[in-house]
């Protein structure tokens, strides 16, 4: 699978953010999310908040909701591990939360250091109280992201959309 043939799926996610009225997006820079990050940074109606670590984003989402705005987080599977204690904020207060997780360490992974966290990402999210929806095929992006936005923002749930490594494509290690 090639990155270039799938370049439109981040645009689909962006369209759903706009439809749902997302006004803040927190992210740690990530190759899988690079196109979506670019779209968000170009949008003057969305505050793009680059984080030093993913757990900061959980506080951001909580603060945004308290102030009446919808927020989403973009992170890589490794970042889920950085959030675990901070997830208690979401569960204890019942904040809606939408997280889009790009997977590493699960399919055609060349870097063994990605595997320990990648292999437990989904169970960890579920243990922390998230509903998880997995996408491996580009034709599912539109429907699943739409459903995730509705579940999070209308259904007041913590929702993680897990973007599989088969969707994202192999990381190109050489420039």
């Amino acid at each position, binding site marked *: 699978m090639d990155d270039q043939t799938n370049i439109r799926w981040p645009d689909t996610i962006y369209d759903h953010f706009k439809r749902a009225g997302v006004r*803040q997006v927190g992210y740690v820079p990530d190759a899988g999310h690079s196109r979506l990050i670019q779209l968000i940074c170009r949008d003057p109606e969305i505050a793009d908040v680059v984080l*030093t670590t993913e757990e900061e984003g*959980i*506080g951001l989402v909580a*603060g*945004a909701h*308290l102030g009446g705005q919808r*927020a989403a987080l973009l992170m890589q599977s490794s970042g889920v591990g950085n959030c675990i*204690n901070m997830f208690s*904020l979401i569960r204890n207060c019942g904040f809606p939360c939408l997280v889009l997780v790009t997977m590493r360490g699960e399919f055609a992974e060349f870097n063994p250091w990605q595997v320990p966290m990648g292999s437990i990402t989904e169970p960890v999210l579920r243990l922390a109280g998230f509903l998880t929806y997995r996408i491996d095929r580009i034709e599912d992006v539109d429907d699943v992201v739409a459903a995730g936005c509705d579940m999070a923002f209308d259904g007041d749930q913590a929702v993680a959309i897990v973007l599989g490594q088969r969707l994202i494509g192999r990381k190109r290690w050489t420039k």
Partner: protein
Amino acid sequence: MNARQTKAPAMLERRQLVKDLLIDRDDLIVVCGLGSATYDVAAAGDHPLNFYLWGAMGGAAMIGLGLALARPERRVAVITGDGEQLMGLGALGTIGVKQPGNLVIVVLDNAHYGETGMQASHTAGGVDLVAVAKACSFADALTLTDAKDIARVRKLLHVGKGPILVNARISNAETPRFLPTRDGHAIKTRFMAAVGSLA
């Protein structure tokens, strides 16, 4: 014992300081870091615009940032402890990048972890949160040691150009616990009703 116990004697009493900072608070939003900061803010007078934390250590400043971005017309104060802010040191960089003009962080710095047995924190060992905030491009960062400067800091909460960090050197004398509700849903819903953001 740490090699660098360089801290000057603290002068401020935390309960009185927080009470004085919140005089005539009007519609000031206050996010409280877990532990003594939450007790201090509650003791100054329970208020629906207080968002009390009982956990999520290291998250107070980022909750403040999310609020400050969502409500640019409102003033947001984060009142937290040195240990709580040290756990969220990266957040100071994130806030420095976003430059929210309406956000002020007040660190109640007793250089110790009061909830866990008064172990020394990094600020007792020479870490300077004011210097960190300056290095993170905060619009202003200052140390508060003298009660006569409290009124000036109170004014900063309401009109100072943020982001600002105030490191208040407080005594590490123990204060009685003053416990607001621990029900996160109740705290959230009451806060949102008061700020006008319930759907």
